């Protein structure tokens, strides 16, 4: 299944169909086949594809990658690297997309089910939701994932269910050779269920490259609430395309946080939320801090299909060294979605001569009784603030770190878990002072 030519040519031409998966005879095979033909029809994007104009994905597919997904093993010490100090949580450890119960601290059996997706193949929720999210239909990499994913996590929270502490999902990627890894997850929160989920993605590769193409589908039934923190802290030799697609039904609340920290060389986030029930609340927060040659691309899409929904989006970027940031955020308000409140803001700090940002905040509005706005800024530190701090005896490095933390405060302040807040502040401090000293 490996080709020594570029992976791009390989998946453009010689790719085998979904039958190669072991679960080929299971209930979702027809859906996999559909997704495969969809992938064939969509083809791989280029910079001429509007959605990919600022991310030349073909450049990252030039190497060869194996589609065979190694099981991968990790040591207890390696697992320690993924710790968030002081965080009291359940854990679900996945290595290359496969759940490792022995390494995890899962909650006792109850109203919240956490299992391998492969073990849930016949679950009605999987039948109901697999690859159904409307926004995944046009995305070639999501189609590729649906056709060929190996495994992932299935979480189902029953009516009124909740956990006494957050669930920390630790995704570890470790391969011996270059690998194209495709995990797939489904989270369903039934009526009035509440969960707090932290996801960390960590790469352990030293030499080989892990290209991770993951899809997470989330369903929030009526009045459900999900706090969802995504920590993208992979090491250098990895490239990531993350799809997170959420459906929100009436009265549900979705709080999404996305932290992209140094330094996978490619991070592309496709976050989309479809509001299918009224009176929902959606908060999307993003912080990307990029160094070296990092390329961080956040695509978000909030789809207001029904009246009386509120969405609020704030993405902030700090771009150091030669890094490159992309933000494309779309708010789509359909004709029936009257009384929509939708806000979107993208602010950026360019901290180096070689860093760059491309941003496309977009409003597509078909209803008149709405309040929608977006804003974008890029700039540098206020020289005055910097001078003020320095005149009080604070060194330049410390002052800049302070100011970056202040810039990021709008986002970190919204984090409800103190241990996580501390962890993030410390990371920001470390990377900013590291970059300034370089």
């Amino acid at each position: 299944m490996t080709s020594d030519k570029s992976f791009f040519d390989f998946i453009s031409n010689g790719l085998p169909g979904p039958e190669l998966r072991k679960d080929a005879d299971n209930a979702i095979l027809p859906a996999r086949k559909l997704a495969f033909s969809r992938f064939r029809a969509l083809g791989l994007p280029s910079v001429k594809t509007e959605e990919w104009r600022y991310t030349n994905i073909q450049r990252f597919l030039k190497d060869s990658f194996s589609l065979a997904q190694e099981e991968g093993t990790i040591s207890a010490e390696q697992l320690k690297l993924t710790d968030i100090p002081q965080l009291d949580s359940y854990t679900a450890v996945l290595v290359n997309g496969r759940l490792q119960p022995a390494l995890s601290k899962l909650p006792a059996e109850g109203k919240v089910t956490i299992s391998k997706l492969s073990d849930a193949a016949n679950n009605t929720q999987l039948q109901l939701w697999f690859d159904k999210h409307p926004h995944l239909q046009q995305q070639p990499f999501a189609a590729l994932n649906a056709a060929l994913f190996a495994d992932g996590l299935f979480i189902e929270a029953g009516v009124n269910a909740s956990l006494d502490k957050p669930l920390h999902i630790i995704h570890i990627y470790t391969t011996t050779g270059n690998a194209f890894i495709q995990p797939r997850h489904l989270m369903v929160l039934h009526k009035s269920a509440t969960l707090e989920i932290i996801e960390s993605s960590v790469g352990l590769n030293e030499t080989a490259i892990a290209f991770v193409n993951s899809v997470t589908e989330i369903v929030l039934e009526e009045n459900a609430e999900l706090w969802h923190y995504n920590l993208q802290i992979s090491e250098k030799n990895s490239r990531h395309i993350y799809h997170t697609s959420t459906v929100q039904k009436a009265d549900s609340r979705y709080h999404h946080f996305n932290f992209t920290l140094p330094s996978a060389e490619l991070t592309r986030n496709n976050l989309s939320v479809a509001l299918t029930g009224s009176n929902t609340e959606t908060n999307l927060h993003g912080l990307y801090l990029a160094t070296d040659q990092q390329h961080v691309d956040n695509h978000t899409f909030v789809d207001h299909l029904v009246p009386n929904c509120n969405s609020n989006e704030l993405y902030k970027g700090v771009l150091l060294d030669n890094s490159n940031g992309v933000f494309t955020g779309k708010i789509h308000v359909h004709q029936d979605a009257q009384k929509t409140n939708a806000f979107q803001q993208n602010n950026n700090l360019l901290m180096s001569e070689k860093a760059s940002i491309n941003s496309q905040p977009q409003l597509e509005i078909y209803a008149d009784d709405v309040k929608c706005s977006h804003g974008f800024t890029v700039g540098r530190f206020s020289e005055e603030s910097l001078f003020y701090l320095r005149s009080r005896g604070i060194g330049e490095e410390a002052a800049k770190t302070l100011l970056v933390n202040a810039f990021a405060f709008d986002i970190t302040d919204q984090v409800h878990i103190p241990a996580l807040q501390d962890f993030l502040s410390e990371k920001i401090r470390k990377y900013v002072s590291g970059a300034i000293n370089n």
Partner: protein
Amino acid sequence: MRNSNEIIDDIANKEYEFGFTTDIEMDIAPVGLNEDTIRFISAKKQEPEWLLEWRLKGFQAFKKMKFPEWQHFKMPELDLQKLSYYAAPKEKKKLNSLDEVDPELLATFEKLGISLKEQKVLAGVAVDVVFDSVSVATTYRAKLEELGIIFCSFGEAVKHHPELVKKYLGTVVPHSDNIFAALNAAVFSDGSFVYIPKGVRSPMELSTYFRINAENTGQFERTLIIADESAYVSYLEGCTAPKRDENQLHAAVVELVALDHAEIKYSTVQNWYPGDKDGNGGIFNFVTKRGICKGNSSKISWTQVETGSAITWKYPSVILQGDNSEGEFYSVAVTRNKQIADTGTKIYHLGKNTRSRIISKGISAGHSDNTYRGLVQVGPRAANARNYTQCDSLLIGDRCGAHTFPYIESRNSTATVEHEATTSKIGEDQIFYLNQRGIETEKAVALIVNGYAKEVLNQLPMEFAVEAQKLLSITLEGSVG
């Protein structure tokens, strides 16, 4: 020839008050587009060989290009072989004075509110009139000549100032820029030419008035304005077209060049026939307008009031090449019925300390779609560049669309770019407040819309600001309630 009563009958339909046609003898090129068409046009205009060559290069580029796909509407199927690419009023002998202009033509422009008789012209505005594709009259020419200002039709400029035309033609909008610009390069018929010499400030507004009259023709005019060092000019274009059931294509090109310390202010009041309420007919307005601030501390400012056309596709742009140069874009775009507007600007910050400001006000009513699309690009050498963009959309009714698609690309850490956009509707409480003071709803809406668009309207020369305000009110009549 018809009598004046018949002409007046033509204006009877008030919906689009400039929808009449003028019955005048025309010189029209055979239908279709090929090299022979281009040679025909060039020969008709007695052009030099170099210009024919340039046209043919444009045609070669055109043949290789496809219609764009990124815009927020489905590109109509245009059969460019069914058009005639040249239409001019006959009797185009040399005119010595306006008295020799065909009286029918003079009457047409009187009716449009554009008087060609200098004593009756709006005080202090020189007008070049383009009827179908050909410039028919330029007023105040002698007075401008005293100052060394050249203001004439493009054709005349080719004859009398070939060195200037040759030096600047296609330097801002190349013959292969995009499919419509390439088409224009191949078949452009006439247009206006302006040159303001060093240190001269034009003492009056220069203005071109465009009128499409003939059937099955496209209009492809080309305007070139050069402001030499420390020169200043304010230029205005207006346009109307008769009501016809078929769509008509308008693919113009405007090039502006501002040298050191020069300033060009370019204003457009676009009122092409928008089609009827069901979306039949109307002008396809696919226009390429671009200016370059070539010199240090130069400035180019675009102001547009777009109320007409079935489809508007235009992005008046500024290349800020000179250090400390400045670009501005002020726009009001109103769409109603089934009109489509996809318009905005592109600003390229190349030089140091360059500044730009974009103010866009979109107003959508009926079943229309109104899109702002704009690019702000800051290059690596544009230290301390600054941009501020404000894009507001106003929706009238719940069957229209208002969209904002900015593209921001910054490659310089010392640059500051800010973009803000809002979408709102006219508040019921605002209308009620005005109602309560005795102002009826339609007038209330006109007041609110004019207030909303004020920042842009204020940029227009005084005489035209008043016209534009009226136009906004008329355009929105019947859109509310």
